[in-house]
């Protein structure tokens, strides 16, 4: 082992593990995953995270779960980010619980909160502080940067956008061009995972009212090479009590500004949040105007998000949908948004519900459907819906109503 360089060990571990997986990932070969944890590099952390997020892949066996611990022991940013993705997005409860446990242990051992560990573990993917990366072909250099949706933007030296990285020419330095092409491929693969995870993470931060202190926000969020372009296309706010105080954005030059364009100094001890439109209220219109003037698009729905407050207007919208028929597939799709099916006798579903922050929404469905997959005559198919809501958390209320009102009206077609 000592005689081998780390790169060749990582290559070996990765190759062995991929071969094992391609051949059916039999249980007695679980050691190959362990080898990946101990010998692998950022590529192996990415691979493990991808496997655990998308497939059962032994996540329900003790061996598989142990590997999450190994990922934690590695402790690199990629490994931590991978664990966070598993903890947040895996379909497998056991993997989620274990990933959370490992993250808490890592955070504790480093004297950090899990939330701060999450921020600190965001990889820069080789981007410089200005969110740029050069791909050096020798005589030609290509530049990569990001847009507000965390999509890669590739340009030539004159700033012309390119759809793909050009092939090396005879006049290029062959070795440099080969290395730059490999760097580009690796960057694209890692960015695909990170872009999706980070957008979901910040949307979640908006929905759960995550707070940062001013100093941390500036250091690990606003100026992060991977995040800064995305951060500049969102609206932020200081926290005043449990409400937004000063609402601001960060412009293209990194300047903090309020809606009227006035400069704003964020104090290190201020608390910062990503306000939900229900918190912005009438100011949403003003910010939409500001963003339109700057032709800004957002990485997820913040300003364009429909929002609802308790009151007669929303109640009328809800009651207008009472008894409306909705395709069964759309109701089943609510599961992906955290809704649960309330199972009655004989495995029949009579309602769909979700509880958030003490606010509970329940959609009664008629005639109901069977969870067994066998729908008896007169059951299954389009469902008449009726929503009832309890609780007063404004964001939870708005989001639950939004989910309900987004359900499409059935057209009577066969699924």
């Amino acid at each position, binding site marked *: 082992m000592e005689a081998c360089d780390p790169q060749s060990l990582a290559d070996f571990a990765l190759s062995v593990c991929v071969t094992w997986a391609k051949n059916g990932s039999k249980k007695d070969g679980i050691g190959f995953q362990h080898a990946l944890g101990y010998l692998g590099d950022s590529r192996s952390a990415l691979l493990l995270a991808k496997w655990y997020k998308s497939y059962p892949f032994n996540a329900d066996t003790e061996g598989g779960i142990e590997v999450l611990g190994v990922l934690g022991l590695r402790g690199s940013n990629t490994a931590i980010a991978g664990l966070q993705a598993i903890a947040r997005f895996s379909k497998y409860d056991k993997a989620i619980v274990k990933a959370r446990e490992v993250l808490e242990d890592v955070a504790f051992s480093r004297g950090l909160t899990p939330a701060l560990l999450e921020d600190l573990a965001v990889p820069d993917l080789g981007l410089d502080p200005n969110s740029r990366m050069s791909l050096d072909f020798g005589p030609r250099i290509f530049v990569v940067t990001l847009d507000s949706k965390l999509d890669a933007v590739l340009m030539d030296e004159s700033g012309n956008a390119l759809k793909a990285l050009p092939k090396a020419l005879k006049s290029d330095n062959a070795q440099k061009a080969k290395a730059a092409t490999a760097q580009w491929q690796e960057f694209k693969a890692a960015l695909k995972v990170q872009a999706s995870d980070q957008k979901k993470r910040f949307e979640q931060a908006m929905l759960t009212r995550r707070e940062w202190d001013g100093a941390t926000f500036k250091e690990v969020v606003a100026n992060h090479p991977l995040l800064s372009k995305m951060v500049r296309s969102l609206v932020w706010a200081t926290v005043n009590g449990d409400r937004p105080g000063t609402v601001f954005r960060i412009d293209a030059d990194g300047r903090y500004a309020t809606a009227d364009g006035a400069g704003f100094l964020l104090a290190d001890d201020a608390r910062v949040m990503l306000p939900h439109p229900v918190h912005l209220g009438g100011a949403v219109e003003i910010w939409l105007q500001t963003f339109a003037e700057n032709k800004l698009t*957002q990485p997820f729905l913040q300003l364009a998000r429909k929002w609802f407050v308790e009151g007669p207007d929303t109640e009328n919208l809800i009651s207008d949908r009472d008894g409306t028929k909705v395709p069964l597939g759309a109701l089943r799709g609510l599961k992906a948004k955290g809704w649960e099916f309330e199972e009655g006798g004989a495995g029949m579903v009579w309602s769909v519900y979700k509880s958030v922050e003490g606010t509970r929404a329940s959609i009664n469905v008629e005639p109901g459907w069977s969870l067994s997959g066998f729908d008896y005559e007169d059951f299954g198919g389009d469902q008449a819906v009726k929503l009832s809501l309890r609780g007063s958390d404004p964001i939870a209320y708005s989001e639950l109503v*939004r989910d309900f009102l987004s359900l499409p*009206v059935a057209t009577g077609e066969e699924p």
Partner: protein
Amino acid sequence: MSDLVATDPDLTNLSAPELDRMIGASVRLDSKIAQHERVAGSTLVKLAQSRSASVLRNVALNPVCPKETLLRLAPKFPNEFFANPAIFLLLLEDPDLFQRLPVTAIKAILKSPDCPPSVIDWAMRSGNSSYALALAGRADISVSSLRQIATGPHIKAAEFATSRLMGMGEPLKEKSE
């Protein structure tokens, strides 16, 4: 190849059975048969299996094309579907014909760059959330239509339209002078 093109048979006076026997020889010939005025509906049904867009386009344009085949081709070739002279007769016979197209087919028509303006107008007025979403994604949709969708009742379509207006630098509401 040029020899083949030069020796394409003259189809002018051929009968429907003769045309039917000639299909499958070449894409170019199939394309010509598909637009022939004497071609039989059953031959067009066979030609509708072609992988060539030019053959399918001509099948969709031919007034003797059977209704079911025409409806199947409509999502891919909306312009030809609406340009088919028989479509107005079919609509007279069966006013719900277009409505009976599956939602997915109408969505495909609405997303197509070739979708006729009259169909876009109809979809804008339809009150259907899926159609509104399909329209909001059209590259050539007017700002006023986007605003209408953005302020409409269909949540996903409204959110998408609002996002697009932001990116286009257009305010959600028209500025009043």
